[in-house]
């Protein structure tokens, strides 16, 4: 009760400070001092501090199971383990918005103290633009989704957290993802401020690059965690479903990845400034549209938040105010500062980065159009269609081939201009090696289709070129080498995983067995186990291979007490070569179980590759700008 009230009043205080920043910083903007007034720093700190207190208040209410708080009542239960009581704080709409707000206020404070080397006007403008976003979120939170609604009489028990959300990966997935989204809001405000303050320069590019990389790292890592969660928790062995909620996290990722490459060109050659600004704006707008699509319930998805049209309308209006604001600022203030039109040589690093941006924007448009087209079609012609995996595969996979090819060649070109003749023999040699390797592999696994074959070839090409670069290149850009290597590994593992996966679904009674390829799966027994907040039925399975080696797998059916939901927990045996995935399900009349057994090669490599990709981004934070 106390924690609840402290939380509520801190939130209001925080809101008060966020309003207060505006007049104070405008006053500061107009005076002649070269530095920002200390007052601005302290107000911004207080804004952050009170949101932090408020967030802690909500966490405490969850820990203490204060069911008078509506959010706690709806999403918690006394029998839930402490860890999930805490993670339940942001496992719901209201709490997760408060987390957004917390990160927003934290980031702008960090921005203020870390941007000393930048001009004062630019810093204050960034703060002002960021405050627009922060105030928007404050209003949204207080008006439509207040996490601190108290009601009487206080119930004895809460409604509980959806069991599929009770998972360690999902506990940290949202905070990490929000760090990425909110990081993109700083990039957004900073680039608008840079436009107004006419501060788009190499200095600016160097400074904003840090924020771009940090957001990218969090976003990539956050998406990976979500995907891991889907793999372990949603059952059935998939890790990416092209579900709208997944797509909306992918869209800003494409945009941010394009920006990450584009900023290098701005930093190096001071060209493409307009494009950089557009990408910076678009990244955050896509993050916001994602929030809109997910929270408004306009789309149908596996991962639904409790939704409410009023919230949808609020975010929609807010989103369009931001879009109009940025459009006007861009068109009124932005003048291409380099009036000379620069010719770009087609055989240069900047050209390959342009190609990268070109393809990334294409992938973005496929995902964006695929996700929103059904909404548009329904409104305009009241016809309902579904856009799913086949659409994305058909439009994306063929385009991956040239994309990967440019990705291999690009880093080996020079800035400004490369000589065709000087392209090293190593590059051709790497191609020969990958040709040979893919030939041998395809020979082993049989026909996989023309496009897949070529895709395997170019992915191997990227793979070998990055290995070559790692050992042989003169000026090593470890960040680029790591992330490109990680990406090639990612595509290879996804490809071979999807081509070589095999599975069998069968209905089994206890004591029965079935054979699959050269293994025998024996359903030995079931036992029931009682846990704190669920009962479970554990199946004991043995898998016997040709050489009579045994492997024990224990998939589970969990019957949660609050809310009463049955979930099936797969048991997965992971090795470096494959995952063995076994899941069982209840069949209506309880006599037999529906069992699905899958062998999924290289599954672990999908995660390892993504981690390498992220490490690549991380390395860029420490490396000095490279030459050439």
């Amino acid at each position, binding site marked *: 009760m106390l924690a609840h009230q402290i939380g509520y009043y801190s939130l209001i205080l925080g809101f008060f400070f966020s309003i207060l920043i505006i007049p104070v910083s405008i006053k500061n903007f107009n005076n002649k001092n070269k530095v920002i007034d200390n007052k601005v720093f302290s107000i911004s700190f207080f804004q952050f501090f009170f949101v932090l207190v408020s967030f802690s208040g909500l966490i405490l209410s969850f820990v203490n199971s204060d069911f008078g708080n509506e959010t706690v009542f709806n999403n918690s239960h006394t029998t839930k383990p402490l860890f999930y009581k805490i993670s339940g704080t942001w496992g719901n709409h209201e709490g997760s918005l408060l987390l957004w707000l917390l990160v927003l206020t934290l980031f702008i404070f960090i921005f203020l103290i870390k941007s000393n080397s930048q001009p004062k006007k630019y810093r204050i403008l960034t703060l002002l633009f960021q405050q627009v976003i922060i105030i928007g979120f404050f209003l949204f939170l207080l008006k439509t989704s207040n996490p601190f609604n108290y009601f009487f009489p206080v119930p004895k028990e809460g409604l509980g957290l959806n069991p599929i959300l009770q998972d360690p990966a999902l506990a940290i997935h949202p905070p990490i993802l929000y760090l990425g989204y909110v990081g993109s809001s700083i990039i957004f405000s900073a680039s608008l401020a840079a436009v107004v303050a006419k501060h788009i320069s190499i200095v600016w590019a160097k400074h904003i690059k840090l924020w771009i990389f940090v957001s990218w790292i969090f976003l990539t890592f956050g998406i990976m965690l979500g995907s891991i969660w889907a793999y372990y928790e949603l059952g059935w062995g998939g890790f990416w479903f092209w579900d709208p909620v997944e797509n909306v996290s992918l869209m800003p990722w494409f945009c941010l990845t394009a920006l990450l490459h584009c900023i290098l060109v701005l930093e190096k050659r001071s060209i493409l400034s307009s494009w950089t600004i557009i990408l910076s704006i678009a990244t955050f707008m896509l993050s916001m549209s994602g929030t809109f699509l997910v929270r408004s319930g306009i789309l149908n998805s596996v991962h639904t938040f409790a939704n409410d049209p009023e919230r949808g309308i609020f975010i929609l209006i807010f989103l369009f105010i931001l879009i109009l604001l940025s459009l006007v600022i861009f068109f009124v203030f932005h003048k291409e500062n380099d009036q000379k039109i620069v010719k770009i040589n087609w055989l240069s690093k900047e050209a390959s980065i342009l190609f990268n941006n070109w393809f990334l924007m294409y992938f973005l448009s496929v995902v964006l159009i695929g996700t929103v087209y059904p909404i548009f079609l329904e409104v305009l012609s009241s016809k309902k269609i579904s856009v799913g995996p086949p659409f994305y595969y058909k439009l994306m996979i063929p385009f991956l081939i040239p994309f990967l090819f440019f990705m291999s060649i690009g880093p080996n070109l020079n800035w400004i201009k490369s000589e065709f003749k000087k392209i090293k023999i190593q590059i051709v040699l790497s191609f020969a090696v990958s040709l040979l390797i893919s030939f041998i592999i395809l020979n082993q696994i049989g026909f996989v289709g023309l496009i897949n074959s070529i895709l395997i070839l170019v992915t191997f090409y990227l793979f070998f070129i990055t290995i070559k670069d790692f050992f042989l290149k003169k000026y090593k850009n470890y960040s680029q080498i790591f992330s490109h290597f990680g990406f090639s590994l990612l595509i290879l593992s996804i490809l071979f995983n999807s081509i070589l996966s095999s599975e*069998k679904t069968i209905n089994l009674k206890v004591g029965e067995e079935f054979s699959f390829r050269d293994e025998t799966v024996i359903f030995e027994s079931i036992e029931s186990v009682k846990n704190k907040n669920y009962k479970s039925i554990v199946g004991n399975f043995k898998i016997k291979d040709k050489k009579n080696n045994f492997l024990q797998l224990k998939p589970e059916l969990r019957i949660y007490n609050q809310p009463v939901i049955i979930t099936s927990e797969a048991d997965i045996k992971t090795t470096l070569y494959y995952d063995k995935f076994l899941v069982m399900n209840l069949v209506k009349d309880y006599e037999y179980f529906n069992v699905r057994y899958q062998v999924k090669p290289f599954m672990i490599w999908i995660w390892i590759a993504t981690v390498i990709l992220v490490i690549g981004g991380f390395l860029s934070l420490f490396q000095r700008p490279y030459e050439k």
Partner: protein
Amino acid sequence: MKLLSFLLIILIIFNFTNLNSEENNDKIKNKISKNIRCLICQGQSVYDSESDFAVSIKLIIDKKLDEGLNENEIYDFLKKQYGEWISYDPEFNKKTFILWILPILLFFIGGAIILRKFLVKKL
């Protein structure tokens, strides 16, 4: 030379097919059920869902395959029963051509813009 070996590899690849028929049938069945959307848990495919509806649809797919229908005929059958919505693979028709064409159109527009960057005459 490069091109030649490339063509060679493609030719050789084309000559492989080694899947036994039972597994093949299972593969087709899974493929179809992944492309059909479940009407009960509407965010999931029939393959990923265990709802009664999904289970019936899986059985129907089995039965239709036994009757000798091919993949596309099964999609058509289900679309006739439940509407186009049930298929994750939208048809190309009057209402959906924008969906299919627009990304590719944007791709070419992007290409044209980039091309202009290369062709600008030196001042």
